[in-house]
């Protein structure tokens, strides 16, 4: 894992002063940072792995947040310029969605005052909150799981990963895609053609059309496309064996997934929730609650991000369960 280098990549997009403060943290803390948060007039904050540190001018974490460094308007303006490469106009579309992906696949969430035109968000102005989310691609995050998902060397089970936010479902999905797409003789996986519909550019983290994360050698990425449309497009155009996508939830998503399964394409996807009941309670997804998915993987962060809770089969029989002592 090279997560330490990862955070240094993010620092490139911060003003000198803040960069300096963050860099003063000990290396062990730096590797654990998942988020750097800038809020106008509020203490500068770094967070990750359950910890939260307010930084002061010397780069230490005072116990009292009142003594921490307060983020100024200049800091935010400068950060914004760096994040959008000095050109707001070039990230117009991204700003509408509230985030910008910078090189390295890191996500910068922005928030301020929205400008509405014809009922849709046109842009965000007066940006006063920014959140740097450090992308961590963890090769091998799905080692434990992958064995349960393989039916035969060239066929997998339709899989749904269920997890609350921030528990590593995207990381796991990415690693599963990479494994299935590249194939591996040792684990008897023949590489399969994967079509990745990456609506929020989070899995492959494309920038200028090039995936910044390793998503395997047989993966085609449709970047920034709404899932439902994207799934249909990919089935028609790229003849996939597997369709992968992130965070389903709407009725159209369910319809598109049904179409894909009926077309004989395997599906790997994720959903927000903390157990299987959460998924079964979603009214919009009623079409795919029975008979579509053959494997359910439930994650939590009880023992750190990406803790594997259970794996269920299509009839909700438990195949694997984490035992807590």
């Amino acid at each position: 894992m090279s997560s330490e280098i990862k955070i240094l990549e993010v620092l490139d997009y911060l003003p000198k002063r803040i960069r300096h403060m963050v860099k003063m943290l000990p290396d062990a803390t730096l590797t654990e940072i998942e988020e750097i948060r800038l809020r106008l007039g509020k203490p500068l904050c770094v967070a990750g792995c359950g910890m939260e540190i307010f930084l002061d001018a010397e780069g230490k974490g005072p116990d009292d947040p009142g003594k921490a460094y307060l983020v100024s308007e200049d800091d935010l303006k400068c950060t914004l310029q760096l994040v959008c490469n000095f050109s707001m106009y070039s990230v117009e579309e991204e700003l509408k969605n509230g985030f910008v992906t910078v090189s390295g696949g890191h996500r910068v969430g922005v928030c301020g005052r929205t400008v509405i035109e014809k009922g849709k968000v046109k842009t965000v102005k007066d940006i006063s909150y920014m959140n740097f989310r450090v992308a961590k691609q963890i090769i091998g995050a799905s080692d434990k799981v992958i064995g349960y998902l393989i039916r035969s060397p060239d066929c997998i089970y339709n899989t749904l990963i269920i997890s609350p936010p921030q528990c590593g479902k995207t990381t796991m999905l990415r690693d599963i895609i990479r494994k299935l797409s590249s194939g591996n003789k040792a684990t008897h996986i023949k590489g399969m053609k994967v079509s990745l519909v990456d609506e929020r550019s989070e899995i492959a983290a494309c920038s200028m059309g090039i995936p910044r994360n390793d998503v395997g050698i047989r993966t085609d990425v449709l970047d920034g496309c709404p899932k439902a449309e994207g799934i249909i497009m990919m089935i028609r155009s790229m003849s996939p064996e597997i369709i992968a996508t992130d965070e389903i939830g709407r009725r159209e998503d369910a319809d598109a997934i049904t179409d894909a399964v009926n077309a004989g394409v395997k599906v790997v996807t994720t959903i927000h929730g903390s157990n299987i009941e959460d998924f079964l309670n979603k009214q919009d997804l009623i079409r795919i609650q029975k008979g579509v998915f053959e494997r359910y993987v439930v994650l939590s962060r009880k023992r750190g991000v990406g803790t594997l809770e259970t794996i269920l089969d299509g009839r909700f029989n438990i195949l694997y369960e984490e035992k807590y002592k």
Partner: protein
Amino acid sequence: MLLKIIGGLLIVFASGLLGILFSNRLSLRYRELTNLRRFMQMLETEVTYGATPLPAALYNISNKAEGVIGKFFSTVSDSLTDRSFYTVRDAWNESAEVILEQSSLQRPDIELIKNFGSILGCSDREDQEKHFKLFYLQLRHHEDAAMEEIKKSGKMYRSLGFILGIAIFVVLV
């Protein structure tokens, strides 16, 4: 006698040339302003149609542009890329002071260019386009003023050169 006439002609010729040289200096400002307009139009295309990020856009244009404006663009691009400045405005202003100071552009021209630096890259494409249009309008005034000066003073310098030459000739003879 013949020698005198040849000498006199030389004097008239030389001082006339001097006048033309002076008036040419004036037209250089005008040429630089029209050059500026051309390259700003290229920049506008890069910004509004290509949505190219500024460091790349400025670099692309500086490759095509010659003269002092090209140098100005490439300096801004460089200082943004290597992070010597953290905002477009600072990089733009600094380069304008350093590079454009050596050109034939006058103080008001440089101020106009500097003002634009605080807008460039700071809004969406639609808004940038409007600012470019406004910039062209203001630039037009400067171009007109430069043209006016060429017409007025340019002619004066040229005729003054010849007249001076003839006057010297007359005095000498």
